[in-house]
């Protein structure tokens, strides 16, 4: 394509990206953990079926949870070893979920960093989709939607464009940035495969304009892929979200309540693209993921590649530990993620970051009275009015909140970020959505 920057006209806010922390750090291997905790359900949809038992010996890459009918995904063992137990553990969002606990066999060593592209194999579209399903690939940018379902749109919804999203807009995180710099070829290969699986004509990788090094790598690598392209977009938050990307790059608007495929587009994260390339070319299911450990509350920020299920404690220890006891631990991004109550929570397929905030960085909510300053309205990228919706939610007028397009909220948190009254708007919006779900069930 070109080095022209495309801008989204939708609302957005400037968040300092904290580039100085993680952007220039190479991805490193974390020493292997002794025990991994693999939550059975790491995706959106129905949980899979556990096909192993306590005491079984499993090998790295062996399927331990099989997908069910409908929207569901597989899970594979991330280390070789014996299954210690299958029980409930904290899920990182304040709830509990079932997990398979594996004790690593000391003799099993394996190599995780292999960024070169090798033995490209030609496969048909069906074969590619089958491999993706068998490899347990889900949206690894955080959404967690099973990729094989995403890549099988109904016949009446032709897809013309595949977008590979490398514009993680969360501050602190450098996972996509580093992947674009270090696994550039694999991303292009993944895009090629996804394009083929869906039968789309166009495909491009999107990168934010402030990731200069990644753009250079993409520009150089794109010479080898005449059919594929890259596109630079502005770096306001949350313009890395798929609705904003589609608007900026293609000027298409998804009708309310529909998916991107309604306008002929499928968006995948760069991690997903890499996973597809590795699954097809190297028969490697999703067993590792790249995590940014960042923030001013951690001694040595790092970008790590870790086996799934590693407790975050091991990552934190490897990064030198917390600066102070009062540091605040967050799983996922600082905008959309959850505060961790315990360091036993494992890394999941969608867990792109562990952020340790110093006390000074952390925003305490005060819930003061709304002064109707409209900052949240101006910040909202989907043009809804967070101040009014949350008023309705807090007073239990769910219908009114829904009429104001509560469902369109992408839970980006921009509204709460800018609110001068310290109102926890995103919490309330999530609360409203949860209540709507409960009522509908």
């Amino acid at each position: 394509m070109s080095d022209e920057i495309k801008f989204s006209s939708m609302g957005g806010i400037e968040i300092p990206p904290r580039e100085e922390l993680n952007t220039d750090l190479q991805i490193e291997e974390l020493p292997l953990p002794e025990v991994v905790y693999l939550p059975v359900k790491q995706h959106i949809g129905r949980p899979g079926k556990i096909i192993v038992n306590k005491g079984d010996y499993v090998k790295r890459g062996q399927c331990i949870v099989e997908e069910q009918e409908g929207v569901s995904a597989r899970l594979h063992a991330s280390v070789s070893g014996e299954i210690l137990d299958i029980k409930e553990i904290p899920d990182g969002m304040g709830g509990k979920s079932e997990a398979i606990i594996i004790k690593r066999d000391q003799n099993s060593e394996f190599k995780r960093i292999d960024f070169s592209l090798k033995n490209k194999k030609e496969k048909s579209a069906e074969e590619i989709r089958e491999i993706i399903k068998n490899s347990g690939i889900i949206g690894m940018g955080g959404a967690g939607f099973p990729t094989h379902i995403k890549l099988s749109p109904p016949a009446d919804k032709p897809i013309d464009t595949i977008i590979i999203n490398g514009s993680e807009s969360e501050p602190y995180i450098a996972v996509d940035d580093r992947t674009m710099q270090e696994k550039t070829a694999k991303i292009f290969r993944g895009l090629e495969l996804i394009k083929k699986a869906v039968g789309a004509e166009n495909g491009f990788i999107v990168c934010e304009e402030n990731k200069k090094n990644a753009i250079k790598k993409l520009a150089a690598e794109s010479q080898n892929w005449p059919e594929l392209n890259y596109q630079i977009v502005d770096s306001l938050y949350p313009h890395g979200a798929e609705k904003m990307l589609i608007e900026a790059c293609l000027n298409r608007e998804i009708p309310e309540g529909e998916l991107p495929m309604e306008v002929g587009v499928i968006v995948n994260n760069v991690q997903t693209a890499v996973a597809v390339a590795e699954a097809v070319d190297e028969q490697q299911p999703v067993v590792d993921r790249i995590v940014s450990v960042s923030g001013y509350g951690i001694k040595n920020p790092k970008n790590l590649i870790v086996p799934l299920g590693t407790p975050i404690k091991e990552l934190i220890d490897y990064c030198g530990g917390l600066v102070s006891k009062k540091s605040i631990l967050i799983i996922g991004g600082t905008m959309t993620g959850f505060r961790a109550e315990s360091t036993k929570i494992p890394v999941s397929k969608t867990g792109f970051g562990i952020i340790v905030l110093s006390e000074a960085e952390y925003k305490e909510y005060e819930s003061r009275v709304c002064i109707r300053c409209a900052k949240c309205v101006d910040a909202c990228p989907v043009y809804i009015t967070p101040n009014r919706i949350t008023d309705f939610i807090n007073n239990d007028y769910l219908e009114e909140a829904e009429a104001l397009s509560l469902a369109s909220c992408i839970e980006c948190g921009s509204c709460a970020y800018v609110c001068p009254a310290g109102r926890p708007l995103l919490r309330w919006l999530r609360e409203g959505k949860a209540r709507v779900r409960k009522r509908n069930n």
Partner: protein
Amino acid sequence: MNLKLSGPHIGTDDTIEKTMWNVVLALIPAAAAAAVFFGYYALFLIFSTAVFSALLEYPFTKKFPGDGSAFVTGMLLGMSIPADSPFWLPLVGAFFSIIVAKQLFGGLGNNIFNPALAGRAVIRISFASHFSSWPAPFDAVAGATPLAQRAADSSYTYLSENGLSGLWNLFSGNIPGAIGETSALALLIGAAFLYYKGYIDWRIPGAFITAVIITSALLGVNPALSIFSGAVILGAFFMATDMVTSPAAKEGRLFFGAGCGALTVLIRYFSSYSGGVTFAILTMNSLSYLFDHLFEGFHYGQYQIRKINYKIIGAAVIAAVIIVLFSYFSLLIS
């Protein structure tokens, strides 16, 4: 899910206090201009009202000087009276502003009417004699404001008599008028600061001024005079933009500003009060929640509804313009 653990975990360092004290900062140029044009007594009036307002809030908030909102109210009130007012006049207004218009409605965030304007309206009506003659800058002879002159003899000669220097005087504030209203230049400097800091949005002032220009032109009043004489600049950038009492929805803000502007000119033209801006904004304040509801605008993904609605609105606007022009010309002819 435990939502107590949900993010965002970072935020801007913006607070209500910061917002309000920035508005105070933005009013400083106008206060300085007032000191230059009207002497230090004007400055005393502005700040005594501000401090008194903040004190009045103490029983309710147990804080002094509090979040700054009362201070802003007091400053605005002090700026909207004649420079030769007795010192107690704005204090009476402040009492009404803070106690009745603000705290009795539930305090900051819950008041329906702009407190400063509510207070001003009360003293404007109760002590009308103090508002009949406005001291001119530099201790010149007290006189009617250019607006009131227009009302007195409809030949409306201020600009044609004074030419370009008249326009400059209007703009810089060298004309009779309320303490803080006269210097458009100083007010605009403050407004530019607020805009740069993101505390005001272009929609309300933009629509306000545009509506003033259009309505004035339709009524045959010189738009420049309408804008720079009287409280339009102060009203458009500092009063109508008051966060609590203006709509939050984007399109609502446009309609709100336009309503304020049109009403200002209409009130000035058809009534004997010089307080067009005050009553226009207070009237629109009462509609602000309604406008939030009616003109929320369209959400992402509603483009089909949006297209249809824009067609209807466009057709309505064109029809309205044709009707107005038609009646205007038929009046001219008759």
